[in-house]
């Protein structure tokens, strides 16, 4: 670290949002009355005062260069009096008070390869994580898969023709920084091989009791290997969660032959209609196939399309499956149901089907 500057400023927190608000927003803060969608990606919020703010939402790779951010700033200056925002799904939203500028803005965005959409019953941006670009934990990449999948789902980003919202998310390991556990479709990187202890250095780099305690299934035991203090992994008890690796670098999990992707479906976050729900396992494993992961793209697309075809209005994927049952879901998507789909973790027994409500 460099030496402390003379007058060190700390603990100031973020800038106050007030400085960042478009005048129309500032004036109508808390006074919004209703909104309408002018076209996919373009919202118009109308205030009690009659004033309106127009939002144009553009898709983003999230991993942005400062060049692109500067270009966003230029666009904001040109169309939005200098005001813009980002969304909770990492899209960028340009805030306009002049509806005439909407189409020119969209044209400029499109020209530069930034699609406008993601509103209402669209597939918005994929919430995702670091992958091979920045994380030590990843069982797969993040940005590359997102790019490949969104290239394919792009028609659903720029239109609003789906039965309901469909939220896709990706996390490159079980830590799930993409919080994929509650998504309509989740793409999750998984390991399938127990950690390979580096016996020579483990004792020096890690606290063995901490390592042992870190394993949720108790698969780790202290052991002396070649005269060195280390741990042994009871491989049959390991389900590759990598929690041990998080606490101990000498237990690497990466393994190209066994790492890959799993697909999960039917989760949601909103309380609209049905309660928030976890995503459930659809496809246990697809090998990593960079740079475009065609099998993953195909799997996601298939699920989206089968759902789009069969769901009723307002039915998100999980709500649709609730109605038709998992049996039909597997039939209609052609996905195989395997032993891996049956839970065997802590509360597994509660997922067993305790009724005679069956479809034939």
């Amino acid at each position: 670290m460099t030496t402390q500057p003379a007058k060190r400023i700390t603990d100031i927190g973020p800038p106050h949002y007030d400085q960042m608000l478009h005048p129309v927003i500032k004036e109508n803060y808390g006074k919004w009355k209703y909104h309408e969608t002018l076209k996919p990606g373009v919202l118009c919020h109308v205030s009690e005062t009659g004033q309106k703010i127009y939002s144009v939402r553009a898709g983003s790779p999230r991993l942005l260069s400062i060049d692109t951010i500067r270009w966003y700033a230029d666009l904001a200056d040109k169309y939005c009096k200098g005001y813009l925002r980002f969304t909770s799904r990492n899209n960028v939203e340009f805030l306009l008070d002049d509806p005439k500028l909407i189409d020119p803005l969209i044209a400029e965005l499109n020209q530069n390869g930034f699609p406008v959409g993601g509103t209402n019953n669209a597939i918005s941006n994929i919430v995702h994580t670091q992958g091979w670009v920045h994380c030590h934990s990843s069982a797969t990449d993040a940005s590359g898969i997102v790019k490949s999948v969104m290239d394919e789902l792009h028609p659903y980003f720029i239109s609003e023709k789906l039965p309901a919202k469909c939220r896709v998310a990706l996390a490159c390991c079980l830590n799930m920084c993409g919080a994929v556990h509650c998504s309509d479709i989740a793409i999750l990187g998984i390991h399938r091989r127990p950690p390979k202890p580096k016996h020579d250095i483990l004792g020096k780099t890690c606290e063995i009791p901490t390592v042992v305690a870190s394993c949720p299934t108790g698969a780790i035991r202290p052991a002396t290997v070649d005269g060195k203090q280390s741990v042994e992994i009871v491989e049959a008890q390991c389900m590759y969660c990598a929690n041990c690796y998080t606490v101990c670098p000498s237990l690497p999990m990466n393994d190209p032959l066994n790492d890959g992707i799993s697909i999960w479906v039917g989760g949601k976050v909103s309380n609209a209609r049905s309660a928030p729900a976890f995503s459930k396992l659809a496809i246990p494993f697809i090998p990593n196939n960079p740079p475009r992961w065609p099998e993953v793209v195909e799997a996601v697309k298939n699920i989206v399309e089968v759902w789009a075809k069969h769901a009723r209005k307002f039915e998100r994927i999980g709500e649709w499956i609730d109605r038709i049952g998992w049996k039909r879901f597997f039939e209609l998507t052609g996905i195989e149901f395997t032993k891996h789909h049956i839970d065997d973790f802590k509360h597994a027994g509660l997922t067993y089907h305790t009724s005679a409500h069956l479809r034939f």
Partner: protein
Amino acid sequence: MADTKYETPMLDELESGPWPSFIKELKKVAPRKPMVQDLLGQLEQSYEEGQGHWKHGGIVGVMGYGGGVIGRYSDLADKFTNCAHFHTIRVNQPAGWFYTSKALRTICDIWERHGSGLTNMHGSTGDIVLLGTTTSELEPTFAELTANGFDLGGSGSDMRTPSCCVGKARCEWACYDTMALTYDLTQSFQDALHRPAFPYKFKIKSAGCPNDCVASIARADLSIIGTWRDDIRVDQEGVKAYEKAGLNIERDVCGRCPARCMEYSGKLMIDNRACVHCMHCINAMPKALRPGVDTGATILIGSKAPIVQGALLSSVLVPFMKIEPPYQELKDLIEKMWEWRDENGKSRERIGELIQRMGMRNFLPAVGLEPNPDMVFHPRANPYVFYDEYFVAEEEGEAQA
């Protein structure tokens, strides 16, 4: 390709297609950023091999702060020397992710000077993520950031950067001021944010209504979800307009109301006592229906990703709380739960897991809340009820004495 040091045939394939390309982003700065040239090289190798090439963690940071920087080192440092260090800096976003072009340019300029020129707008927790720099650049970056009114976000076992939906700034449904609250909490708990002293991380997310556009119920230890307790405001003419426009109100609105508390026959009737505040009818007819005016929030506790004991969604703690400055009731509650966790939590145990382990029975008195049927889907189904004490017969008492 001339601008980059390495051939990246696999990555290049990710430049085509209608979705904006992160590889293009990398290549935009690569010509002037050797770090990114090497990053491209290493990433290409990851693509070829099917595995990442970053080493495990590494504690780096800025003076006096325990969090906000994620140390990252290449395990191919010999080959890709320029990205041997590739730390990220997490920077607190303005609430609601609102920016002026000026503010954005300020950040870009700082990052031009001190880092890779790559960012995430934003990280999953909500921070501005400045992606990739060296240890020696951390302190200068920090100095410039604070000089310009920005501060670091969280990492490690601290309070993480709170985030929120757009709320009252641009949403008609916000039942409280999510941005004001988020700003206030972030400021009030600066110490908890910057100096990790918890058993494990603690996240706060604020959504203005039950649509939960910031996924708070799934991704925050403390989820603050706006709601109302009076009647949904109905404009009957507006409802009719939706019908005329083709909405099947009976089937698609009333028929999908989880409380089955609506009826429509020319007039929309809502049994507001039965309504569970799901937002569906309002979502479906935004020009006709609005939440009530006696608004506040439901406070929920404990969500997290699956590591270690399985994922959790947040669960109801306070069914309804008024959310108004200075937010004292909420802050007291937060401090009490932190105290309780400090006393009882294990390292790497989220508060949700701790409650799962110790039970509401222990948690509720610690934070001064009474049991409430809203806290549970249903009362217990097993008969294993603990009692704190039992009666002792007089004879026994004597016998024992």
